[in-house]
């Protein structure tokens, strides 16, 4: 098992790349990219966009490993419902893997599309055997492109089962498919806040030997005015500093994740300026300290 260290999420955004340049060049041990942001649609075909070339150049110059974090393979949608789209996605991912030689690839656990309708946001799955089979089939397809793959626990605002039972669902997927897991600790924190579960108990019930990567990030709260009830939810928005509770979760799980390759610090483009870069660098350094444990 090759340990990568602490990575940073790259965004296809020139301003963000420039702002984060010190982290990308000096602090990050590896870089995480969203393959779909390196594609464009032209005349009905999906092809490389200009960021593809730029990211290839970053990889060449930095000599840092790249990992892929997919946005829209929609791993909870049964393959039979969209075979053409699956073929297109896999062909593009193959092309990206040839270029970037991803150390591994992860995807969001959920589904974003069905019948051509695009929710874009990963939506919750029922915690059923049928859903386990659907995800496992997709993970096998991804593994035919990038040998080491994983799924990421999601933050959702409604559920189709008991949220406290989600860890058993994750473990069942890991047993059904040759895959690992990307444990997103802010998402676990958000599930705990939104559904009233204990985040430490939640992560303790996950088979942590299957965790290949951890995400840490910040988030924010929805505005009370958005809902008539004025109820507020914790959002998976990657738009703020990593909360202390997420750091505590990281310290808690890190020693038990025996097959962990790396930790990625996520921060969405457009949500930080030059004045925030020193604090972001500190987050990467703090993650490194914990990664070494």
């Amino acid at each position, binding site marked *: 098992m090759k340990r990568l260290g602490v990575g940073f999420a790259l965004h296809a955004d020139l301003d963000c790349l420039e702002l984060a340049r010190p982290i990308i060049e000096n602090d990050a041990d590896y870089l995480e990219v969203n393959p779909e942001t390196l594609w464009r649609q032209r005349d009905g075909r999906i092809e490389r966009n200009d960021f593809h070339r730029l990211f290839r150049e970053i990889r060449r110059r930095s000599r840092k490993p790249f990992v892929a974090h997919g946005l829209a393979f929609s791993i909870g949608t049964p393959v039979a419902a969209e075979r053409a789209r699956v073929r297109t996605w896999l062909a593009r991912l193959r092309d990206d893997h040839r270029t970037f030689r991803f150390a591994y690839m992860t995807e969001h656990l959920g589904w974003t599309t069905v019948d*051509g309708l695009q929710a874009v*946001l990963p939506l919750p799955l029922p915690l059923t055997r049928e859903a386990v089979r659907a995800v496992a089939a997709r993970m096998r397809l991804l593994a035919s492109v990038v040998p080491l793959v994983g799924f990421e626990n999601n933050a959702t605002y409604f559920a189709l089962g*008991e949220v406290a039972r989600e860890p058993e669902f994750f473990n069942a997927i890991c047993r059904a498919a040759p895959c690992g897991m990307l444990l997103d600790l802010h998402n676990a924190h958000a599930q705990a806040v939104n559904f009233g579960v204990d985040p430490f108990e939640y992560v303790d019930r996950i088979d942590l030997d299957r965790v290949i990567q951890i995400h840490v990030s910040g988030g924010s709260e929805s505005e009370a005015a958005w809902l008539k009830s004025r109820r507020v939810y914790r959002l998976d928005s990657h738009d703020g500093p990593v909360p202390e509770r997420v750091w505590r979760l990281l310290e808690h799980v890190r020693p038990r994740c025996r097959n962990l390759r790396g930790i990625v610090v996520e921060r969405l483009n457009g949500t930080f300026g030059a004045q925030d870069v020193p604090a972001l660098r500190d987050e990467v350094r703090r993650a490194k300290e914990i990664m070494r444990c």
Partner: protein
Amino acid sequence: MLIDLQRALVRALTSADPIAALRRARLSQADRALLRHADDDGVRLTGLIVQKLRFERICRGDDRMEAWFERDGKSFVQAFKRYNKEVPPREFFPRAEAGAFWQWCRANGFAGEPGRADDV
């Protein structure tokens, strides 16, 4: 079946009233039982976020859409609300969504930047 539940959910979450759409959906008893876990506020919030992501795809997909929004946010939002209600979201890529929005605006009398539409 999973696919039936997903079809009902995606149609509901991309509609103006997700809760009403879910109530109308024809689903098996087993799927209805799964939906009973879904809290109405959470479903509504998810629908709002799905809309917000579409709005952002349009603004990100074409600088002129963003400029229109900054110049005259009220008319842009008005156009978006009608577009979102009338056109199901089928585009994943921001540029394609922005192009579809612009074509719809031209066909429906919401011209943000007259004379430059053909460049989209």
